[in-house]
C-alpha cells in the first residue's frame, strides 16, 4: 500500500532562523531543508534572510551566497552552473528543476528549497540516486552492434539521426523521475521517466542491433506500464525534453507489434 505521509523519522521540523546582518532593504526569505546525519535528529527547515540586491540571478547563486556568507554548513551538489551537468537538481518552490537555471526573481514570496522528492536524504539537499543509476545500468545504455566489425564505420542517415533529437540531450539530473508519483510509490520496480527516455533513445537508434531485445526487456507491467501519463516529468524537465512522449512511443511500439 502506498504511504502518503512521511515516516516518523522524516517529518520536517521547524529549524533555525538566520536574520539578515547586511541591513539590506531587499530581503528574500529562503527556506531550506536541512538534515545532518550525525545529529540523529529529524530534518528541519532553516530560514535565511538573503540580501537579494547583492545576489546574482539564479537560485544556485542564492545557495552559494548562503553557504559563503551566512551558513557554511549547508550541503548541496553543484558543478557546472550552466544547466549541463545536472548536479544541482532540487525541488524549488514545489517543482523540480536545476538551481543554476532557475531565476529566483520568478518566484513570488518565500523561496522554498527541498531535495529531490521521495529519495533517501544523504545530507541537506543531497538525495541518494543509487537506485536510479542501477536502473540506468539495467537498460544497458551503450551501442550494441555485434554483426559489424568494430573498426567499420556505421552509417546513419539524417532522418535516423533526427530520431534521437529530444532523447540524447538528457543530462540524467533525475528531475523527471523524482517528480513522478508512480516512481515515488514504485521506484524499486518502475524504471521511471529518466531511464525510460534513455531506453527509448537506444531503441530508436538505427545503429543498434538489439532493438527487439531491448523492447522485450522493457515490456513489463512494472518496469514500463506504471506510467499513467501524469506528465509531471515533462513539466519538470529543465532541458525541455518530453519523457512522457518517449514512454508513450515505447508503449505504442509494443502495442502495434512493431517489435
Amino acid at each position, binding site marked *: 500500500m502506498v504511504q*502518503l505521509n*512521511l*515516516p516518523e*523519522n*522524516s517529518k*520536517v521540523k521547524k529549524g533555525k532562523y538566520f536574520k539578515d546582518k547586511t541591513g539590506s532593504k531587499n530581503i528574500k526569505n529562503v527556506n531550506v*531543508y536541512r*538534515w545532518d*546525519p550525525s545529529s540523529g535528529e*529529524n*530534518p528541519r527547515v532553516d530560514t535565511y534572510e538573503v540580501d537579494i540586491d547583492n545576489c546574482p540571478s539564479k537560485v544556485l547563486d542564492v545557495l552559494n551566497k548562503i553557504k559563503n556568507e551566512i551558513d557554511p554548513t549547508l550541503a548541496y551538489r553543484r558543478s557546472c552552473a550552466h544547466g549541463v551537468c545536472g548536479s544541482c537538481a532540487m*525541488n524549488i*518552490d*514545489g*517543482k523540480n528543476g536545476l538551481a543554476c537555471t532557475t531565476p529566483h526573481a520568478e518566484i513570488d514570496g518565500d523561496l*522554498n528549497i*527541498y*531535495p*529531490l*522528492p*521521495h*529519495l*533517501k*536524504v*544523504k545530507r541537506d539537499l543531497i*538525495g*541518494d540516486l543509487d537506485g536510479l543509476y542501477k536502473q540506468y545500468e539495467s537498460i544497458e545504455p551503450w551501442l550494441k552492434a555485434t554483426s559489424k566489425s568494430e573498426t567499420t564505420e556505421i552509417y546513419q542517415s539524417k532522418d535516423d539521426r533526427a530520431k534521437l533529437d529530444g532523447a540524447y540531450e538528457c543530462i540524467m539530473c533525475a528531475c523527471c523521475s523524482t*517528480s513522478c*508519483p508512480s516512481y*515515488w510509490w514504485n521506484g524499486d520496480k518502475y524504471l521511471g521517466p529518466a531511464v525510460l527516455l534513455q531506453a527509448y533513445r537506444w531503441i530508436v537508434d538505427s545503429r543498434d542491433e538489439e532493438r527487439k531485445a531491448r523492447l522485450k526487456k522493457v515490456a513489463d507491467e512494472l518496469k514500463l506500464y506504471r506510467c*499513467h*501519463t*501524469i*506528465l*509531471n516529468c*515533462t*513539466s519538470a524537465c529543465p532541458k525541455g525534453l*518530453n519523457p*512522457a*512522449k518517449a514512454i*508513450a*512511443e515505447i*508503449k*505504442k511500439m509494443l*502495442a502495434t507489434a512493431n517489435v
Partner: protein
Amino acid sequence: MENNNPLSPHLQVYRWHISSLVSISHRITGIINFVAFIFICIWVFMLLLGEANYSSIEFLLSSMIGKFIILSLTWSFSFQILSEIRHLIMDMGYGFELRTTRISGLLVIFGSIFLTIIIFIIGKNLF
C-alpha cells in the same frame, strides 16, 4: 544494512499541475464509478423482487441526499468519459506538448461540468 536516512518530502511539497490533478481525479472517479455500478446492479436486481423495493429506492433517490448523489455520479461519469478520451488520444502518441496537455486537461475539467449540466437538463426534460 538498512538505510535509516529520512525520506525527502514528496506529496507534501510538490505543486499540483493540471495534468497531475486530472490524472488523480481519473483514478478516484474510476473507483467511485466502479462502486456506483455495483449499486446500480443491485437496484436493477431488486426490481425483480417487486414493486415495494422500487418505490423505497425511488424515495431515497428523490430526497436531497439522493439528488446530490445522482448529480455527483453524473459528474463523475462525465469526467471519466472525457478523461478517458484524453488518455486514448495520448496512447496514440498525440498531445504531449506541455501547452496541449494543459489545454486538454482544462477541457476535461470544464467539459465534465458542462456535460453534467447538459445531462441534468435533458433528464429534467427542459428542452
